[in-house]
């Protein structure tokens, strides 16, 4: 039996473009787990794959759009949310998921993130946060911890990192959660919840990067990172995202925000009806 034939037997195979495999991700990378959780969520919800659009940016996780068997767009660096805004507003019947990395969404694309959250455009944004630019060989990014080593912080990082969940909540996201690649079931449930909820939803996934970031910071193998997640993660639902820290000793995970707020589309529809009546 060929590898492909073996793949085809997998219950989730129908959600994937199998001809695109093997994927490009390193051994131990969290991106494959995110893909797994995402398609599991699609399967659990029975999502209509003809009405789902996955949009990604540039970076390792950016390739995910090309692996899922639905309409998908692998955009320019930093622009997936802006492009997804256009898709959603032009065809409100589509379900939109943006899956991208910390650098793509919060450095080069940071402005689009905060404004889409503020507008409350209906989309689910999943960020694979691996603390560095893995694809280009490991440079520091907007989430790299202080003192960490990357190719562009050879003497240690002196820039304070973003707390992504705090940023998302402050910008107006209606659902904000953080998990790690270890929390497969909880992450899947979070994705399901987000996909069913209206408005701008954000899920941060702390993701091991053993080959690039891990190696340079002596974090050991991926399995060591996973073990560490188990030791230091603390689940705190409803916790103040401003205080939801990520440190060497502790990572606060959980669902921090789950509120209701009219979406851009709903407000527009209301306005549309008023104008049509005139």
């Amino acid at each position: 039996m060929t590898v492909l034939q073996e793949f085809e037997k997998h219950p989730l195979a129908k959600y994937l473009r199998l001809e695109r495999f093997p994927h490009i991700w390193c051994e131990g990378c969290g991106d494959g787990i995110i893909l797994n959780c995402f398609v599991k969520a699609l399967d659990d919800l029975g999502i209509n794959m003809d009405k789902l659009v996955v949009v990604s940016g540039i970076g390792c996780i950016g390739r995910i759009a090309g692996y899922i068997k639905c309409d998908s767009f692998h955009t320019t660096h930093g622009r997936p949310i802006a492009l997804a805004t256009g898709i959603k507003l032009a065809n409100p019947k589509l379900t939109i998921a943006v899956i991208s990395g910390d650098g793509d969404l919060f450095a080069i694309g940071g402005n689009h993130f905060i404004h889409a959250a503020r507008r409350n455009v209906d989309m689910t944004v999943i960020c694979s946060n691996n603390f560095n630019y893995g694809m280009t060989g490991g440079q520091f990014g907007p989430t790299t911890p202080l003192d960490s080593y990357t190719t562009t912080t050879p003497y240690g990082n002196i820039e304070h990192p973003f707390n992504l969940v705090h940023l998302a909540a402050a910008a107006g996201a209606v659902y904000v959660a953080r998990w790690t690649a270890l929390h497969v079931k909880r992450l899947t449930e979070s994705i399901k919840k987000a996909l069913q909820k209206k408005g701008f939803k954000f899920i941060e996934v702390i993701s091991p990067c053993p080959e690039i970031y891990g190696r340079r910071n002596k974090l050991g193998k991926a399995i060591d990172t996973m073990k560490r997640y188990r030791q230091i993660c603390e689940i705190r639902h409803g916790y103040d995202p401003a205080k939801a820290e990520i440190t060497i000793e502790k990572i606060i995970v959980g669902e921090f925000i789950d509120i209701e707020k009219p979406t851009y589309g709903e407000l527009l529809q209301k306005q549309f009806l008023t104008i049509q009546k005139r």
Partner: protein
Amino acid sequence: MTMHREVLTGKHLMQGDIACAEGAIAAGCKFFAGYPITPATEITERMARRMIEVDGMFVQMEDELASMAAIIGASWAGAKAMTATSGPGFSLMQENIGLAVMTETPCVVVNIMRGAPSTGLPTEGAQQDVMQCKWGSHGDYEIIALAPASVQEMFDLTIECFNFAETYRAPTFLLADGFTGHLWERVVIPSREEIKTVERKKPIVPADKYVPFKPDEDLVPPMACFGEGYRVHVTGLTHDELGYPKTTDPKIQHELVNRLCEKIRKNSDKIIRTYKFMLEDADVAVIAYGIPSRSSLNAVKRAREAGIKAGLLRLITVWPFPEKQVEELSNHVKAIVVPEMNCGQVVREVERVAKETPVHFSSKIGGEPHSPSEIFEVIRRAAKA
């Protein structure tokens, strides 16, 4: 609100920017994303008011990077889409203009050109972005750009831009100067039936037989949009006909990039529009586009009165460059005059094509278009030389 019509048939005094917005609506534009910038803001404002009336979508984005990205997304969601800006915003759009080229996304980008570089002269017109329009994004590509010279053309050519964008699956540009954008002039809007609009070519095969980037004979692939069940993957990376990234095979890059260029070049006869005035017996030909072509028309008339055999070739299509037309002309005139509101952009193309024929350039920057007498003087000098 009494006017919920898509086509405002009738006679109006309209501003160029507003005529452009109305042209877009008449062409079937259903999505507009923009960011305010002088002297293009009036287009955005008009679309904010009008899109909702015609069941379209208006969104003001956070910047021009986002505006350009949003119209690409909207186009893939099936809408005819447009954005409008001026120089500084146009610079920001270049990144995703390249994405539109690479992903063969039909969309219209309006640039109401103002004085530059940088923030330059916000309220003053210019033609300084003509080369940027052709070469602004990285890499080799061909685009279509039309240059209106009147408010009527702001309306007519915007429709034409949509038709070209949808036909060739390429970003298409309305390259107007700030003077024309802010000009108020009569526009006659025909009835809806009289306006020719083009819809994009759709696949005729079922999803399992559809190869998203496999071109037809005209080099343009039929376009399935998101939500139509074809499950298309779109990427800015070099891709094969299935749309999948192929970044280590030189042959794929060669075929894709050449096709993207050739689909415009090979169809250039269908794209190029010019207007000719008194060229049959001309010794001196003025080649102009946009507002200086109107000064030129007046100057040519004055030259004829003064006994100089002058004529005008007005470029309505600037890109792809009307090489054939200019070459033909250069074979039977003694001199060419090119007035531009920049320091010399299209004149380079003219020189390249005209070869031996002397080309006299007339530059005007600062906002005011050339006066007819300025161009007349250059014609007189060119005739003597």
